[in-house]
């Protein structure tokens, strides 16, 4: 029977919400979704899928690509090859998907954010999200997809009955890569997730020497400073100030983004802010698609003009 295998992303007992996007894509394709998940109480809504395969293994072993390929091998031997294997487009999802693609010699399209059913086309973003590429597997047979979070979850729908579940026994753990421990971020005095007003800085500020002037502006506005990944990577601001998937998810009353172009990973961390204001000199910057208000201008000039007005 034709089916799609959805590899669940679970982390520290949590069934990640972005798994719903993987399930939603199956609904859109009109395919039966079989959810692959480690044994454990994840409190999932089983009616969203057509079947479950529970692997009797620990979560950290399940998320290890060297073990995942053995699990997939077992399933394919038992059920036959799936039409498609879907992973989340996350740190672990892409790691698992790419390794499985190499191991089984299968086509892979990552970061898929749309699907055209009539043409059998998957959309993925290119060039700082300014262009979408239309992709499809070249031949017949199983292919691998990773799904951008937020893209398909509306399509996930309950089937009305509890699906059949089966279990597969543990597979021998690979020793070439082993989990040691989780490392939590250091606690700091500033919690940007609690701020009502964030002044967030991006690559566009140019260099570190500009930071004090923005801090002064933040002081005048009584805003808290945060930043996007490039600013954190360059050590211009501490890690605790990072907004985005690998940093913090924030929902302030006002998110004032200066010099942030709006990479998807950043947008995912701030899109639920009540009011987003973007200042950027590039009118094509993706952030203007998500902002409520925009100013197309040199950010330093806007900063200096604001300071001028505020200082009266």
């Amino acid at each position, binding site marked *: 029977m034709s089916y799609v295998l959805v590899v669940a992303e679970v982390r520290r007992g949590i069934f990640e919400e972005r798994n719903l996007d993987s399930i939603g894509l199956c609904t859109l394709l009109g395919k039966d979704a079989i959810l692959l998940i480690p044994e454990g109480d994840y409190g999932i809504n089983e009616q969203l899928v057509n079947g479950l395969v529970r692997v009797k293994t620990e979560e950290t072993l399940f998320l290890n690509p060297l073990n995942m390929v053995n699990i997939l091998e077992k399933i394919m031997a038992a059920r036959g090859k799936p039409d498609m294997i879907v992973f989340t487009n996350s740190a672990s999802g892409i790691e698992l998907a790419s390794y499985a693609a190499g191991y089984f010699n299968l086509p*892979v399209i990552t970061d898929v954010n749309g699907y055209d059913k009539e043409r059998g086309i998957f959309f993925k973003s290119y060039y700082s999200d300014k262009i979408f590429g239309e992709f499809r597997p070249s031949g017949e047979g199983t292919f691998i997809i990773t799904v951008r979070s937020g893209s398909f979850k509306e399509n996930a729908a309950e089937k009305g009955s509890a699906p059949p579940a089966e279990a597969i026994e543990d597979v021998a753990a690979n020793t070439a*890569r082993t989990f040691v421990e989780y490392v939590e971020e250091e606690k700091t005095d500033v919690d940007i997730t609690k701020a009502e007003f964030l002044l967030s800085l991006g690559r566009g500020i140019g260099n570190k020497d500009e930071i004090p002037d923005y801090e002064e502006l933040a002081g005048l506005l009584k805003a808290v400073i945060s930043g996007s990944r490039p600013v954190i990577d360059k050590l211009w601001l501490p890690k605790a100030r990072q907004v985005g998937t690998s940093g913090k998810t924030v929902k302030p009353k006002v998110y004032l983004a200066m010099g942030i172009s709006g990479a998807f990973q950043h947008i995912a961390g701030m899109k639920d802010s009540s009011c987003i204001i973007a200042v950027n000199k590039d009118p094509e910057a993706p952030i203007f698609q998500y902002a409520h208000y925009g100013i197309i201008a040199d950010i330093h000039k806007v900063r200096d003009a604001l300071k001028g007005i505020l200082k009266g």
Partner: protein
Amino acid sequence: MNLIVFTKRVPATQEEELRITDEGKAVDLSKVPFKVNDWDNYSIEEAVRVVEKSGGAVTAVSVGDAESDEVLRRSIAMGAKDGFLIETGDVLHDPNARATLMQNFLKKENVPFDAIFTGVQSEDDQFGAVGGILAAKLGLPFVSMVIGIDAYESDHLIVRRELEGGLQERVKVMLPCVLSIQTGINEPRYVSIMGVRKASKVERKVFKAADYQENVVNKIEAVKWVYPPKKAGATILSGELDGMCKELLGILKEKGVYQ
């Protein structure tokens, strides 16, 4: 340790207006400046730091056209010993095709290594899949999103990989292995024009991609390029700078975050 680092020359599209041409068949990059892929810059830096402590050498390898020599010179200026170009005019959108080409090259040229570093992803295609595919094809363990190398022993590494929301995972990985390096793992050293000029005196070897084509096939097809669908978008403020700024302050007052 002997390390191979793959580095790629990419268009810097962040602040450029891109135009689709040829009825969706191409994207015009002729006016876009090119640079080293950000992730690869961190990978080279990390590799150089490892050999500075442990001994050994870094070999930078780039798949691309003749212009990609630029990122090899840059790698040498940062501390790589050798620069190899696998020259091809093909764009290689499919990460499977790219990884297979790399695998064939490493096998045929018998380049010795203890570990291979790739960037987590390339800025242009944002696939993030080459490292994982290459590792599986070579039968080596793989760790992606590496944000720290905590220890290196003769037979294994202890690395940290970045997950979501500030969480990291510490992993032990046996050598030889493939690591995909995340941005922010280090602070890449500054490369001066003089440094690159000096590096250009070090010979870079050029190999022809045509010699490593076994099983290099496109498993996926790039059908067409399109512009992303437009959302409602922002209300763009207009007028003089001072006027826009006053309007901005008005919005902040209205939203109750500024008095």
